[in-house]
């Protein structure tokens, strides 16, 4: 225990920046052609409908313009991104079988720790294929399916076919189309009716090869009355070439079911994180998002909740931390499409050192969705004067029987609060860090301990020597 503590205390940015030697056996050509798509599909030995779906998506991808309404993507050379890299390893079921180099990287990220602490199962994505996957036996016995997407496509083809990219279709936007064409890996979770998974399932993604894109697909189905907490962590080391992440997360929450989906995204500072996440919630179901965005060069990330069934509920808790060279355009969308649905949004952002944090939100209440309630709160903290912070919520109301409240605030750390903490013997930097940690506390308290610690460490790393 004591050992672990020291280990976490000593954590620094460089541990996220360790590069393994690039020894992949296969790399697709740069740029995208139908031939590449066919090659990917055949290597994976996919059913024909999936190949057709990929090719259709490729067409849509080629026909759609780059989105220009939010962030600058002009530096992103789509032809330059190798879309598929297969690590030189086979799927392993026990930790011992994972190659040393990869294991070492995970070890530095603290993953085996989590495993040792008997967490439900770890699915760690290393580049495009999941290299390590383990699920505790009692979960299997309850009928829970947790495996990587490629495997699920073969073993549970019918379920995958029913749900895959039905919530986020390739027509949605250019990067959803790209995802449809080249997706690879990711997690598949199926929780049968009435099953309460009382320990969180975890998955860790990591990009390793320079210039590699990551297009993992996460598909989670929580059946009637079932309950699940899924945790996804993302991290990538630093490279000179711009990397792209265009994953998709599709969450289906059935009647009376609950899903909590927690993510800490800490991509390297050259990453374009253009991720699409969406949940559809049926009658009296609940989706809870906990979302932390730290790394990446550019992020466009707006997890969306569609409250489709009467009494459905969504809760979004998010923190965005934009530092030097980062433009993080994040937020959330909520669509109240049924009566008596409720939503809560609690978003916080911090910008410093020239970072640009942009909150973009949508709250929509459809015509027949009466008796809905929504509370939105956005708070932005600016740590210096080189940074920028914008808030742009869009509230669209199409009926009157609703109760909507929205609040936003922007500002900096109060000098009086710093003085108060200092008067108790805490130095200025620590006082500021304490206030920042307090600011993000609503997020940290929602996370499992290891993630909360990681989050606090990230904040400490971010604040080190840059304020005061």
């Amino acid at each position, binding site marked *: 225990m004591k050992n672990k503590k020291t280990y976490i205390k000593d954590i620094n940015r460089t541990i996220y920046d360790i590069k393994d030697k690039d020894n992949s056996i296969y790399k697709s050509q740069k740029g995208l052609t139908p031939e590449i798509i066919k090659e990917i599909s055949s290597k994976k030995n996919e059913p024909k409908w999936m190949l057709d779906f990929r090719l259709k998506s490729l067409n849509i991808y080629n026909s759609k313009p780059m989105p220009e309404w939010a962030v600058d993507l002009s530096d992103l050379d789509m032809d330059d991104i190798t879309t598929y890299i297969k690590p030189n390893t086979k799927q392993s079921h026990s930790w011992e079988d994972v190659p040393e180099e990869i294991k070492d990287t995970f070890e530095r990220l603290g993953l085996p720790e989590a495993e040792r602490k008997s967490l439900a199962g770890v699915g760690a994505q290393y580049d495009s294929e999941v290299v390590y996957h383990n699920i505790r036996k009692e979960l299997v016995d309850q009928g829970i399916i947790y495996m990587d997407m490629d495997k699920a496509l073969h073993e549970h083809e019918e379920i995958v076919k029913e749900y895959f990219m039905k919530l986020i279709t390739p027509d949605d936007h250019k990067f959803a189309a790209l995802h449809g064409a080249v997706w690879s890996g990711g997690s598949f979770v199926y929780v049968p009716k009435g099953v309460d998974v009382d320990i969180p399932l975890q998955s860790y993604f990591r990009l390793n090869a320079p210039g590699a894109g990551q297009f993992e697909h996460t598909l989670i189905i929580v059946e009637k009355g079932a309950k699940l907490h899924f945790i996804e962590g993302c991290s990538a080391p630093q490279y000179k070439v711009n990397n792209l992440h265009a994953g998709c997360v599709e969450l289906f929450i059935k009647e009376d079911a609950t899903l909590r989906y927690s993510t800490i995204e800490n991509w390297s500072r050259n990453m374009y994180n253009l991720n699409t996440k969406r949940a559809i919630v049926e009658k009296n179901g609940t989706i809870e998002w906990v979302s932390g965005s730290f790394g990446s060069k550019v992020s466009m990330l707006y997890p969306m909740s569609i409250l489709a069934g009467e009494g459905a509920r969504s809760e979004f808790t998010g923190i965005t931390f934009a530092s030097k060279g980062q433009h993080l355009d994040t937020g959330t969308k909520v669509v109240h499409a049924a009566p008596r649905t409720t939503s809560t949004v609690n978003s916080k952002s911090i910008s410093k050192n020239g970072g640009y944090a942009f909150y973009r939100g949508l709250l929509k209440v459809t015509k027949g969705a009466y008796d809905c309630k929504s509370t939105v709160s956005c708070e932005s903290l600016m740590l210096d004067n080189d940074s*920028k*912070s914008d808030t742009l919520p869009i509230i669209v109301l199409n009926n009157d029987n609703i109760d909507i409240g929205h609040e936003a605030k922007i500002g900096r750390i109060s000098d009086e609060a710093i003085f108060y903490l200092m008067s108790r013997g805490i130095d200025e930097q620590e006082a500021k860090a304490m206030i920042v940690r307090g600011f993000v506390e609503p997020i940290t308290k929602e996370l499992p301990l290891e993630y909360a610690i990681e989050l606090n460490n990230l904040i400490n790393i971010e604040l080190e020597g840059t304020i005061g």
Partner: protein
Amino acid sequence: MTSWKRIGLKDFEFPKIVKYNKKYLSFEEGAKKEVSLNMVTDITSLPSPKIEDNFTGVGTEFILNVKKNYNAGIDLHIPKDLKIKEPIRLDFYLDEKNNHLVDFNNIYAKENSEITIVIDYKSIDNVEGFHNGFTNIFAEKGSVVNIIKLQRLNSKTLNFDSNFSRVESEAKVNFVSIELGSKLTGFNYTSILEEEKSYSNLSSIYLGDKEMKLDLEYTMIHKGIRSQSNIETRGALLDNARKVFRGNLDFKRGSRSSKGVELENVLLLSPTSKSDSIPALLCEEDNVEGEHAVSAGQIDKSKLFYIMSRGLSEKEAKKLIVESSFKPIIDKIPFEDLRSEINIDIERRLIHG
């Protein structure tokens, strides 16, 4: 052709503007001598500081339309240190013969002067009308400009109004906008808080009913240090009325120790009304305080019940609540006849509409 997606203006084309021949200015002759007050005849030769080029108002084409086709308006200059207590009143009444109004108003308050202007836009018959206006305000150091705009055009009239103010050090511009009429309204108010302790305030109310469409945008751009802005909007929507509110607080780098507050409160009184709110907060300066809040929904049921328990009907109770929400802003109009006309109008629409 112009189309606005959010409010549903489709394929709009400017009409060919006809002359506006009605008298619209009433101001005591004695006071008139002290200020320079002229009907606008030639925009290009206005002696006042030049019009902000970057200002696009409700749309570049609308500003351009005013500059080319204006048929009414005033050019008003208040000399240094002169404080005019009596308000200037402009009554723009649209009727069958004068159904196009394109007004350009230039208000230039010199150092430490003070002025109040009330502009009333009203249809006096049921003819289809068109209004497109541009009001340009320049408030020099220490001056105070109070401007109250009242819009009561009929439900066949299209209404576009662009307003701009530049506020210098310790000057105050208080803008009141009361939107009660029109078929469709596009309204923009943009204020630049240019210098130290510039102060800019926007209070507005709107009442939408029938098929009325309102697109209201208010922007406060903080440049000066210790500048202060306020946006406060209250509205009520009935029937199929549709409204878009855009409030922008923009803190530019250098506007340290500034403060901006933006509030919108909308009462939704019909299941078929539509309300969009986009309150933006833009910030590139850390040492500022900015906040916005939007609340939307029906009238609080327990409040309604309480009033009804004292013998009022539901409609009367709702009217009372809407009126009490509007009252502080209506009370800012310095003319009794206008206040009472507005109150009667609101009552008619809430009780008999």
